[in-house]
């Protein structure tokens, strides 16, 4: 691994130590610290959870439990393209499940995962309040509505072309 990566990482870990120091000894500090850590790193990998556990003197199992309980925490780095498919009631009844399966299939990842090249991540979200457009999907800030399996296939093809990824290659 290049040292430059390490440096910027250790910088973030230094900041994490500060965050922990600030909250230490306050009751109920776990969730705020995890929240700030997530903003700092973008996600909560095992190393970060370990530092938090040791810093706040709580078992790692607790940190992991909280991280997996609240959907606002994520254990994996998000992709350059963050894809969210709404599985709220309105979208669901209009076939969002088929949409999300199609996307997962094309990206060769499971829901909740990030592709190994770090380009795409796929999540199911709760209602995003665009029920009129159901079923809905967002890619970063961009919203796509009234999707069908065919439509979503076309959209995803374009993204895959843009990043130059061979659709048949294994992600």
């Amino acid at each position, binding site marked *: 691994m290049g040292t430059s990566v390490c440096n910027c990482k250790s910088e973030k870990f230094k900041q994490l130590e500060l965050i922990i120091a600030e909250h230490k000894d306050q009751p109920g500090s776990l969730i705020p610290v995890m929240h700030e850590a997530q903003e700092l790193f973008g996600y909560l990998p095992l190393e970060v959870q370990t530092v938090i556990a040791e810093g706040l003197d709580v078992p*790692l199992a607790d940190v*992991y439990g909280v991280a997996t*309980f609240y959907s606002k925490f994520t254990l994996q780095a998000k992709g350059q393209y963050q894809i969210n498919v709404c599985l709220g009631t309105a979208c669901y009844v209009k076939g969002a499940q088929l949409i999300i399966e199609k996307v997962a299939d094309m990206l060769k990842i499971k829901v909740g995962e990030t592709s190994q090249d770090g380009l795409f991540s796929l999540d199911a979200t709760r209602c995003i309040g665009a029920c009129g457009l159901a079923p809905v999907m967002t890619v970063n800030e961009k919203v796509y509505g009234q999707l069908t399996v065919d439509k979503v296939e076309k959209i995803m093809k374009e993204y895959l072309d843009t990043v130059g990824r061979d659709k048949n290659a294994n992600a």
Partner: protein
Amino acid sequence: MDMINLKIDGLDVSVSKGTTILEAAKELKIDIPTLCYIKKLNEVGSCRVCVVEIEGKRGLQPACVTNVSEGMVVSTANKTVRETRKNILELILANHNRECLSCPRNLKCELQKLCNEAGVDNVYYEKKALRSPVSASLSIVRDPGKCVLCGRCISVCANVQNVGVIDFAYRGPQTAVTTPYEQNLSENSCINCGQCIEICPVGALQEKDDTDKVWSAIDNPGLHVVVQVAPAVRVALGEEFGMPVGSNVEGKMVSALKRLGFDKVFDTDFSADLTIMEEGTELLDRINNGGKLPLITSCSPGWIKFCEHNYQDFLDNLSSCKSPQQMFGAVAKSYYAKRADIDPAKIFVVSVMPCTAKKFEAVRDEMQVNGYREVDAVITTRELAKMIKLSGMDFTKLPDGTFDGILGESTGAAVIFGATGGVMEAALRTVADILTGKDLQDIDYKEVRGLEGTREATVEINGMEIKLAIVNGTGNAAKLLDKIRAGEANYHFIEVMACRGGCINGGGQPIILDKSKTEEVRQRRAEGLYGIDRSKEIRKSHQNPEIKELYADFFEKPGSHKVHEHLHTHYVKR
């Protein structure tokens, strides 16, 4: 004290303020069924099995976490309560892999008992366990498909043992009790103590079964299979056969082992005496020659792993003595092999232990003698019971057998190793004789006995003051070591056992179906051991004739070079 008057099932009762409905009902001999509740340990009110109806309140309330109030009128078994309770159990069963016939917990399962008592006669939901597959470490097997999410194991692991490697994770129907990233328990700081197994109401946790290894060794004519049995096993094994708690079944156990086909039936009590010879010498040496103090005992492998993970600054305080289990193996494959003229490569050593951590200890790298593994297979008290049942013996009717020589003789000092404070007392008996040069008769060190989690005492022997501490449960050990670190306490000698109460309550001991009796069971098992001690003619380790023979013949003297090669070890940072 403020008293509260209430009515439960039409009966008047008056209890102090702050009492739960569950406890108040107990006063009236009304047993409200519970599942997740363990007094003082897991009072979370999550399973709802204990629901009762309170007049004037909407819905039902959990009795285990609802406090009484003046004039309350409670029904614990009316139609609504009965139906709801049954329904709750049915819902639990809906997400439970129901395989009682092949389940390790069959007949000792709280869920089974509850369903039976609540009249659950049909399960209306499809059987489906949404959880992860079975995972096994060297000591512990977790079967999430049978977990009822009571959270008891989490409480024991975090709050009694101070380990905290398991917790709830995920949400909704995926909720599970698991480790971070579903690690196997052998990949993290789990100390293999098995206290989670003992507290689990169902078959979601059990020991890793090694009986197959033992059966195939017995069936292999090319092997000389010897077995050793730890002190605490003999006062608990009887429970598996319906005998009263605390019964001493040593004689029957020896007969059973002989019938199972072991070539020699030996006693870990023998090597416990050997441990005292070495540890006593080590203590005096450290005190007299400015060695590292306090000396901390090293018999309990759960404690050792705990120390290696969390208190690395105390590793030099640990006694370098191997545990009795390992000393036995080392002696069996050297001294015994020589005396019996058997190739050590052909000797297969089996241990019967009250402990799941012993399975881990046996495979530690350091635990080898002349290139041989000291112990080849470790089974728990429960696994031995299983083997006996499988072979169709009527255990309660077996005649009393006696251990084989030359590794079978033991003293009263050795047998009390199985209870918290026992190692300390055994060591004191020998140390006192060495220091005074006498054969002291007053050898009951009552000040170190008891079941409290932390005890302190100072004894004076021949003008030498020795400050002692005894802790059981790694959580209590942690608190004590923190105090020492902070300079708030100091001792010469500390005994640590990883499990509350010591080995009598180890993670491999018979399951106590009624958990509210745990305290009482510990007490009775401990009394069983002290009873054996009293009945022994020889009660001090250094007077064990076979131990004397071992030194004369093989080791020369305690602390000799050869002893160090065979019986001492070192520890690693984890």
